[in-house]
């Protein structure tokens, strides 16, 4: 068994009196697509945030590629997220002032790539995801499905080793949701990126290699999804 790319060990996290994670442990292998499923409030999103270094757990450890995330400073974790991770959220959350093309260029530019250098990869990904025609439009001028594909392109553009997707199809109808999910997983596999997917939809979880079901802040069951 190859060493995990990302691993959570016995994570606990509370928000006030609400315990969101309660000894959660998980492993993600390179290139693996893992679905975190479970009822609302079971701690899926909190675990995703801890895994990606957005949140620091109250106790437990998160290891990424041999490094202990919980010991990194906020600045170091931000740099790590820029370089190694990609994110897709439920409503896309594209920057409304920027065009779709510029939204996809944004992570590259934040990593220091000049605008001219960011243009090509962004355009290529938009084409790959079938939304070239909206490149010059602002997010408010495109449909939900198109916007979510742009968000997927933005998550992929830096060639991340892990993509974190939190309910990426939650705001889409089933047809659009499945299309977006298919594109996300296919593009991730092409690039060898692992995907950590939070969803409560079984048909979306079915795109994953593996599924971890959450209940009361801990993964209680693991099974092959495909």
């Amino acid at each position, binding site marked *: 068994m190859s060493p995990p790319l990302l691993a959570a060990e016995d994570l606990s996290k509370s*928000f006030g009196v609400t315990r969101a994670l309660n000894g959660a442990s998980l492993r993600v292998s390179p290139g693996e697509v893992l679905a975190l499923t479970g009822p*609302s*409030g079971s701690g899926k*999103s909190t675990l995703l*945030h801890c895994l*990606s270094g*957005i*949140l620091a757990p109250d106790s437990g450890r998160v290891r990424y590629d041999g490094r202990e995330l919980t010991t990194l400073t906020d*600045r170091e974790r*931000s*740099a*790590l*997220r*820029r*370089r190694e*991770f*990609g*994110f897709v*959220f*439920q*409503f896309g*959350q594209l*920057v*409304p*002032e*920027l065009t779709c093309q*510029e939204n996809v260029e*944004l*992570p590259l*530019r*934040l990593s220091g790539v000049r*605008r001219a250098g960011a243009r090509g990869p962004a355009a290529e990904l938009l084409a790959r995801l079938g939304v070239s025609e909206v490149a010059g439009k*602002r997010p*408010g*001028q495109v449909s939900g499905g198109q916007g979510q594909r742009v968000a997927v392109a*933005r*998550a992929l553009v830096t060639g991340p080793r892990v993509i974190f997707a*939190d*309910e990426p199809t*939650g705001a889409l109808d089933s047809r659009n949701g499945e299309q977006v999910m298919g594109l996300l997983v296919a593009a991730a596999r092409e690039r060898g990126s692992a995907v950590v997917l939070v969803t409560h939809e079984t048909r979306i979880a079915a795109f994953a290699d593996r599924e971890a079901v959450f209940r009361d802040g801990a993964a209680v069951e693991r099974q092959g999804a495909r």
Partner: protein
Amino acid sequence: MSAAGDLALGVRLSVAGGRSGWLRLTLIAAGVGFGVAMLLLMAAAPTASTNRQQRLADRAMGVTAERAGPGTLLALTTQTRFRDEAVRGRILRPEGDRAPVPPGVDRVPAAGEMVVSPALAALINGPGGAVLGDRWSARVVGVIGPRGLSGPDEVYFYVGSGTLTRDDGAARITSFGGGAAPVTDPAIVVLVVIGSVIMVLPVLVFVTTAVRFGSESRERQLAAVRLVGADAAMTRRIAAGDTLIGAVLGLGAGGLGFLGLRRVVGGLLPVDFSPYPSDLRPVPILLLLIVVLVPVGAVLVTLAALRRVVIEPLGVVRQSGARRRRIWWRLIPPAVGAALLYPLLDDPAGSEAQLAAGVVLLLIGVVVLLPWLVQAVVRGLGGGSVAWQLGIRRLQLDSDTAVRSVSGIAVSVAGIIAIQGILAASVAANNGVQPPDDRFQAVVYTNGADGTGWEAALVGTPGVRQVRTSGYAELRQDGDDQAGVTVRVGDCDTLRQYAPLPSCTDGDSFAGTMSGWYQTTVLPPGASVGVYGTDEKKPLSRWEVAAGLPVVEQYTSDAGPVAFLATPSALGIRGGLPVDAYLLRLDPADPDAIEHVRNTMIRLDPAAPLQLFGDDRVGNQFAGARQVAQACAVLLLLFIGASMLVNVTEQLRERRRLLAVLAAFGTPRRTLSAAVLYQVAVPATVGLLLSVIVGSSLSAVLLAATHGPVDLDWPVIAGITAAVAAMVVAVTAGSLPLLFRLLRTQELRSE
């Protein structure tokens, strides 16, 4: 539901919003209340001024009489100074038992008694005040009431005399007052109009900002109401009701704030402007306008804001994409303003209303032009760093919010630059050449009085080290020529007290000028004139104006310039020249030396002018006004900065989820901070540029209209630019704690 029912529902939703609802309502009421309090103070300014002028008119000397009688009073107006305070008052001597009593006192003080204003009493009883108390050799027997004073801080007195006569210059009167209140100087009216506009507009901007506090939570509330069946029109009425309650509470808070402020505002103003609290009563029509227009305006602002928001049952959608602004109608106010001002460049006489209207229209032009200008500028910007891109694109999408605050800056700065320009020119006009440090410190003029014994009295005054006399004569072409030209006569050392002389030996003479004064009567070279002293029929000598006389600029003086300065032998005078000025060198170690001189002069002749060199009152007044204008500028910038901060924080709250996403994929804080800075700085810079151009043009027009030298006050412009830059940085810094808080990931949670 009826329209009234919708409004009532809005009110209910507003007050039933729990702790956060009350917090929002409190913020709106406090913001609107602060603005309303300011507006009420401004609305009360005309009443305060009228009351003040009326009291001054009521205590002016009334009907005069030729003969003494039971109802006559001899009164001599006099003025002295104590340190930096002007001390004004009257010497009174009743000639009968029915002599008129001045307002604010019960009876005319008897000889050896005086009544004083509370401010003068405080000076006399304060540290070092004994020397002032000695000035009149009179016992303080009472205090002048408010009816007899222009304001609570006026330093004023009435002193009784047993020896005052008409020969001392006293007037014989049978009453006080009865005349009309003095007409305000039209130039002051213009300054007040500009001042009002630059004060009112930022306050209005602040009020429109305040009613939008927490608009995001209100919009969420409205979406919930939509979900249970309200249509779009009902939603707007509910929003209007919600705003209305905040505005009405704000009116109440503003009223209370005004009542509190009017007790303290007097102490914040210069003595010559400070009102009694009871003077501060808003003009009824202005009060009505505030009471009606603030709630109505608040509702209109809310409805206008909702035009760009679509409130749906499942949430709120903001319409993106800026509509292109049209410029044609925006050019109308400044064009009309310029058209009104342009003719004044050539002929400014009697056109104060036109001037004021032109100024106001030009300043309004700044407000209406700015949104177009900001949009045009940001449309042309692009490229740059990620932070620049985020900031500029935000402005390209929606510059309305930023412009709302910046328009406050623009109009205020334009007005301040204009006012500062006028004041700077006035100060410059009153500052001429600077006298040397070893100049005598003071001069007493006889002003036509017999100065016998003055020199000895002054020499014997504590703190006086040296007294030097100087003479004065009139040059006339013949004995009947009344338009005399003045000449200051003295030896070279004495003449150097009046002007810097290039070189001087006995027999020299000079032509004189003075900065800020026009020399209307000059004698051509070769003119032969008689030199007249006190005897208007017999000249002391005759003098021929030499060609090529050196021209010297005299030190600025309230007494104004003389046409010539000459040594006695230059004029051929051999004695008999009347002394009219006693120049005094004071002991620098005695800080009260000048006060002792004033005491001496009160005894010798209370009406004799005493001028302290370096105490250039006109210049000081303008310099004081400049300081007030600068202080107002700082206050305005604070006000505007608060508006901008509110707007920026509102924008950040609206974008909390997006900010959290940007943080999630590793956007550095400094990038987002810089984006906020650009969002604030770019419109502020455009506004500043527009205001500098308009303000400088306005200043140039006003200076030309007042025949002043057209010279822009670059230090002031640089100072205001620096202040605006500091404000931009402060607003950005003030918004950072919230920005960093919003970068936390709770906003990412979708469940």
